[in-house]
């Protein structure tokens, strides 16, 4: 049984001009010890998807559908139940580490409060665990760091402290939203190694949201690509990156700096503007920017097309169907 099974998740947000769906009918799952990557257009609803699992949607945000976690429905949880889930079962680290850190409280207070509240350990034991956690995430001079405030660290260092805090209560699922965007590549490589290790050692499940396809390539088992609040494609990491089949995914991968024409500073990008919340195009939301769009794409929501048992696209036109499936492309 999967640790997490999300079905028909729809997230509605309040915008200046009424309600709008930021996530639409999204279904996916994360297995035990599996690392799922989520990528997609900026503004496509990745963060809202994550927040809905923690009961942390913005003011007036509503989620419907079903989120089964470890065998029980959590979408209907009360505030109190969500607080318990957040402390002990699902932890999240954010794109902006200051989201989970208080700028004016010492690192020690923040790390140990967490431990003491959820695991009821003594002050001394909590301090020791905090020191260990800081060492795990490679904070220099952990003891000195304990008495510092997060505002005194650089962006990258703050993220490491946020990771330490997320790991404090040994969650079953870690949701990491752009966890390494603020980190340099050598530290990023260390964090990727750390997440791999946590998966192996603790059978931790991880859902990692990032636009960095390099990070997804080295870290994840499976990838889901989102556009305008919906999945457009998902598959095993190597299949999806070597043989993308949805026109949006194709465009995303073609835009990688390594894939544009060498010796030109200009990178390939997908023409047109990203869709606007509350104003998503009808039918396939990508039709306004898709070179392969047919008349029907404007009208009907694209049905799922299973290419293999583990690779699917939401594009009935399937313009790259004649390409080999071997991955050599």
């Amino acid at each position, binding site marked *: 049984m999967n640790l997490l099974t999300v079905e028909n998740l729809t997230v509605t947000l309040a*915008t*200046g001009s009424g309600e709008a769906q930021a996530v639409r009918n999204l279904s996916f799952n994360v297995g035990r010890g599996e690392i799922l990557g989520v*990528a*997609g*257009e*900026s*503004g496509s609803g990745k*963060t809202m998807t994550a927040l809905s699992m923690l009961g942390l949607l*913005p003011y007036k945000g509503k989620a419907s559908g079903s989120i089964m976690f470890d065998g029980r429905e959590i979408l209907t949880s009360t505030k109190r139940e969500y607080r318990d889930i957040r402390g002990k079962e699902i932890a999240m680290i954010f*794109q*902006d580490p200051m989201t989970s850190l208080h700028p004016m409280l010492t690192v020690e207070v923040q790390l140990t409060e967490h431990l003491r509240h959820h695991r009821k350990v003594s002050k001394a034991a909590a301090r020791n665990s905090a020191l260990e956690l800081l060492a795990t995430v*490679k904070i*220099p*001079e952990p003891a000195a760091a304990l008495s*510092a405030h997060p505002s005194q*660290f*650089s*962006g*990258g*260092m703050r993220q490491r402290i946020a990771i330490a805090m997320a790991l404090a209560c040994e969650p079953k699922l870690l949701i990491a939203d752009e966890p390494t*965007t*603020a*980190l*340099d*590549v*050598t*530290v*990023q*490589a*260390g964090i*990727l*190694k750390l997440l*791999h290790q946590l998966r192996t050692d603790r059978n931790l499940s991880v859902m990692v949201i990032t*636009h*960095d*396809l*390099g*990070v997804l*390539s*080295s870290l994840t088992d499976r990838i889901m690509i989102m556009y305008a609040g919906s999945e457009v494609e998902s598959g095993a*990491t*190597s*299949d*999806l*990156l070597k043989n993308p089949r949805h026109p949006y995914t194709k465009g*995303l*991968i073609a*835009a*990688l*700096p*390594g894939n*544009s024409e060498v010796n030109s*500073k*200009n*990178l390939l*990008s*997908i023409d047109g*503007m*990203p869709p606007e919340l509350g104003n998503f195009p009808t039918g396939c939301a990508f039709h306004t920017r898709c070179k392969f769009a047919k008349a029907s794409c404007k009208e009907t929501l694209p049905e799922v097309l299973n290419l293999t048992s583990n690779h699917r696209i939401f594009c009935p036109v399937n313009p790259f169907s004649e390409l080999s499936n071997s*991955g050599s492309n």
Partner: protein
Amino acid sequence: MKEILNLKNVAVEYDRHGRKVRAVAGVDLTLNSGEILGLVGESGCGKSTLGKAIVGILSPITGEIVFDGQKVKKLTRGKRPDHFRNLQMVFQDPYGSLNPRRKIGMQIADGLIVAGMSKKLALVKAADLLEKVGLPRNAVDRFAHQFSGGQRQRISIARALAAAPTAIIADEPISALDTSSQAQVANLLVNLVDEFDMGMVFISHDLSIVRRISDRVAVMYLGKIVEVGTVDQIWNNPSHPYTRALISAIPHADGTSFMPKDLPGDVPNPMSPPSGCRFHPRCPLAKPECSGNEPELRRLADGRDVSCVLQTAGSQPVTLTLN
């Protein structure tokens, strides 16, 4: 090519509980018009601090910064001198740098109104700028919290562009964007640099983008520049062991589950930097004398500057092999 920025021996300190943190420890750097200079290095090595010193938000304790012929002074609360309105920064943290209670349009229009434009026209121009960075025109009427992380980064870029700058310090301007939007914004920046003959310092952890759009790259470690050279020199034959480590840590987006190499050892604390070469405790090629003498930046025969005892001034770079 005209030199637009010149930094000499710039050092910046913070005060942490009475202890001095020298976040930037003596940096020499130049930027030319029409040039993109990539600035890369470990988290916490002082890139943002250097950027803030360049635009006058922080004042250096030693050294000087000259922008377009005039010495940069620390900004005061009053109006920014006209000369320095052409020197702009896109901040790393688009959350902290946007005012949550003011409409996006007004935040962009501010700079234009200060420069003498009518409010009405400034708002139209703000919408133009938002469109230029790939956001809908009606974003002028919304607030920062109504945008995703990536969208806020575009807003910060639009705001910096409002001043028609001749030099921009762009601190991680595209790090929260998807690859296609990254490509769009990177192309936008490249074209602006060309079109207006701007100079740009491009701070980024995304080395594949840095490689593509920069002309030269400066590599920083613990407050100091350790290597500066052309993109080709840095990538094809890095001559400083830290540069070498950075290049080996870049992940490959090819679906091969290639594991990039991390750099073992503790990130040093700028409050007590290691003696001698600041990289020596983590350097796989360190020699005994590296803990004693701090190497200076010196020019190699191919025109790059590097600070490492393994390289000799005036000679061709020695190719480094790590394990």
